[in-house]
């Protein structure tokens, strides 16, 4: 049936193949067993993460967000067939973009994440590597660690992961990108932005050996005032 099958990429937990079927390009994502992982985990992860990803992608798609459409899912084999989105991850582009373009992209990314969170969905591994920049649009991909939650904690963790990723991989533009991201996020998030923002600060000071005064200030905000 497939006219062409080619190895496409390898993620942390899956191998991606680019396949051409009936004239359209598709991505076949196959989650793998890991030699270092206990078999109990292998089964649970493969099935659970495949199921979650398929469910959340179709939900997000129905909300009109830019994600690849899930087409076929085989939970027991850990296989997910997705629409192919032509483009490049933002992680490879942001450092060389013009300031203006980067601002626009960060804002658009912020809007999509805000809409996602407004619909109780968190991503769980929000990084610039998990995006595709395609025809001026930002696509968010890789929802294996995603889930549904009403807890602002999960939304704050998404912001924390993104900020951590920016600081580690793109230190030169981290602040600028995050500010623009949050600027739009604030406008589009339907809940109380201040709650997410406060929790975001809190998650950041949870790391080891964070300055005691900084931690005190942030925590006091939560418990005392």
């Amino acid at each position: 049936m497939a006219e062409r099958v080619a190895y496409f990429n390898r993620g942390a937990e899956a191998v991606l193949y680019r396949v051409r079927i009936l004239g359209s390009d598709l991505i076949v994502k196959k989650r793998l067993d890991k030699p270092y992982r206990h078999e109990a985990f292998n089964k649970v992860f493969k099935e659970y993460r495949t199921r979650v990803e398929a469910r959340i992608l179709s939900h997000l798609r129905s909300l009109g967000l830019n994600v690849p459409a899930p087409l076929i899912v085989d939970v027991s084999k850990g296989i997910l067939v997705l629409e192919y989105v032509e483009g490049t991850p933002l992680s490879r582009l942001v450092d060389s973009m013009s300031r203006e373009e980067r601002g626009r992209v960060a804002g658009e990314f912020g809007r999509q994440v805000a809409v996602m969170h407004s619909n109780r969905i968190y991503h769980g591994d929000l990084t610039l590597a998990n995006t595709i920049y395609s025809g001026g649009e930002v696509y968010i991909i890789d929802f294996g660690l995603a889930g549904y939650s009403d807890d602002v904690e999960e939304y704050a963790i998404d912001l924390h992961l993104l900020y951590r990723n920016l600081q580690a991989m793109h230190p030169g533009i981290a602040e600028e990108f995050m500010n623009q991201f949050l600027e739009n996020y604030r406008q589009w998030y339907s809940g109380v932005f201040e709650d997410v923002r406060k929790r975001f600060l809190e998650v950041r000071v949870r790391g080891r050996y964070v300055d005691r005064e900084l931690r005190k200030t942030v925590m006091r905000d939560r418990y005392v005032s």
Partner: protein
Amino acid sequence: MPLLYKVPYKIPVDRELVSLGFESTSHTFGVGIVRLRKGFAEVLANVNSQYKPLKGGLHPREAALHHMEKAYPLLKQALREAGLSLSDVSVVSYSMGPGLGPCLRVSASVARFIASYYGKPLVPVNHAVAHIEVGRLFSGLEDPLVIYVSGGNTMIVAARDRGYRVLGETLDIPLGNLLDTFAREVGIAPPYVVDGKHAVDICAEWSQEFIPLPYTVKGSDLSFSGLLTAALQKARGAGKEGLGAVCNSLRETAFNMLVEVAERSLLLTGKKSILLVGGVASNTVLKWKLEKLAETHGIPYYGTPPEVAGDNGLMISYTGLLMYLHGVSVEPEKALVKQRLRLDEGDYPWLRE
């Protein structure tokens, strides 16, 4: 036979230097002496003494008393092994943090005294950076993804833009702390380590059974506190076999979490090798899992050997040397300690772009 290692960085000076370093962030007081010669670091001495509590966990004051007692004899022993006297030393360094206040102050006081009495340059060293640098020196790996696991730290680290960037870390307790606390609470420690084997590893051999425990991975960050609580609950009244199953599952779950985030960071950064450092680096099960991970990706893996995996004086003296070579030194009256010192705070000029 002296141990010679090629320094993996460009060295700005040609002359021979001898570096003396003191480690005392936590349970270990250590003295290390390294000689730099023609681009090679020669290990002249690495003598360490660990404070081992008879019961309970580590009391900072008791540990500091141990360090004070050991400081002089260990220094003497190190100098004897190196065949040097203090006047031969070119630079003195100490662990400035992160760590326990009372412990940190011991190495700082000793180093301050020697530096001012003998008029030697004094260098404060970030303990976490020292773990990584000595791992890089021994492994010879160029620009690895670093997994740093110990009693006080659990992080995935990579060098970028003259600094070390934290890609993922624990949001609550570190891995070593998880294992130690569990062992202590269920009554199988202290001693925490017997013949190089952790109490949890010994206990895990009592059973092959696997019971599901909470698995908390958030992107590249980890959380172990829920796992600890759940494991302690399951262990209650479990009997020897049952406890074995909990130990086995606890270790399996915690290590799988770590290896998963390591793999994610590996792909994110595109690094081409893996380096394991810190006290927990001596754990054979974790080593095996990381070897498998490296094998899957067809890249080299290096786990630091036990004598430099745990806290030691050598790593401080070597890192102090690197810092001194790049113009870092402080006046003794400004040589402070910092209990909370993050790895990603500093600028390390020897790291290439």
